[in-house]
């Protein structure tokens, strides 16, 4: 609001610069190595929320789940049915805790995008999506090496079955790049760019709405960007869920591929 009124008073519509939207000054422990800004606090909140969800749900487990326990159990059910069963199969059940924590952590750090007064998806900064993607990369490679042995894993991931030997010269480099480099990169970019794009969209329409608010006759059409803003907020809730789901299911696909090579 402050931004928009400044913009209106200077006579034109000024969009805040990208640095203004993404770079946050430190709030706590300023100047030390533990300095926390808004993004760090959102991540702390997401971690604690994920932990508390399952601690509270598990402490007084009732036979008929209610409240927090219901949320946690639906989460487990959702991950088991829609993620693990569709991609790995029953022998992937030992990864359910990992998928659950990844899903809820990403969901909680995305959903701050539409919570009033926070309104920033922490994953719109690249660092943490990168860390998560590296974690997934390490895990699926480790799973592959444990299940197929080092050379078996390398061979199965680089040589697709049924390729004529003459084509291997082209196929092996392509498979190498796509399996070991593009996978973590696209995991990171997908999460980060979706959240950044959503944040920029919301900012654009919020700035438009606020600018029209303060401009006499133009207030007649203020409802137009405002309705779009409301619609986009609903859409961003969907995107926050969907990105958490897609990150989890892609992780499951990669781990499943490392567990069961194609024949």
């Amino acid at each position, binding site marked *: 609001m402050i931004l928009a009124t400044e913009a209106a008073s200077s006579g034109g519509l000024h969009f805040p610069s990208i*640095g203004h939207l993404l770079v946050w000054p430190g709030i706590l422990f300023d100047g030390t190595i533990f300095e926390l800004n808004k993004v760090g606090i959102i991540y702390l909140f997401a971690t604690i929320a994920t932990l508390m969800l399952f601690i509270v749900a598990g402490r007084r487990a009732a036979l008929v789940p209610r409240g927090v326990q219901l949320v946690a159990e639906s989460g487990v059910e959702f991950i088991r049915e829609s993620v693990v069963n569709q991609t790995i199969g029953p022998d992937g059940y030992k990864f359910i805790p990992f998928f659950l924590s990844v899903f809820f952590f990403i969901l909680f750090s995305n959903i701050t995008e539409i919570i009033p007064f926070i309104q920033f998806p922490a994953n719109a900064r690249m660092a943490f999506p990168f860390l998560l993607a590296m974690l997934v990369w390490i895990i699926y490679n480790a799973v592959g090496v444990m299940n197929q042995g080092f050379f078996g894993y390398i061979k199965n991931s680089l040589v697709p079955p049924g390729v004529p030997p003459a084509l291997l010269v082209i196929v092996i480099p392509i498979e190498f790049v796509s399996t070991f480099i593009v996978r973590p990169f696209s995991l990171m970019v997908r999460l980060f760019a979706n959240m950044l794009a959503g944040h920029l969209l919301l900012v654009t329409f919020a700035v438009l709405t606020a600018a029209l608010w303060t401009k006499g006759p133009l207030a007649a059409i203020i409802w137009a960007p405002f309705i779009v803003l409301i619609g986009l907020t609903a859409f961003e809730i969907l995107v926050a869920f969907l990105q958490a789901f897609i990150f989890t299911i892609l992780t499951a696909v990669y781990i499943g591929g490392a567990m069961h090579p194609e024949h």
Partner: protein
Amino acid sequence: MLELLAQADQSVDGLKAVGAGLGYGLAAIGPGIGIGIVVASAIEAMARQPEAAGTARTTMFLGIAFTEALALIGFVVFILLNFA
């Protein structure tokens, strides 16, 4: 001379903005068509075999995620060219 240099500098900035916009537009064409095809086929599959709707939906999201990646990389390039 200095003025000329300053002008050239400005036009480089302008070209950057034009290139970023065009680049993002071009990067959005392919994934747009691709996501359309993915979703259309998934709907067709769900309509033909409603009992397989769960599998079709999961696979559809996977397909969308892979297709969408290109458009998102285009968006990142746009951001980098304009603001970095």
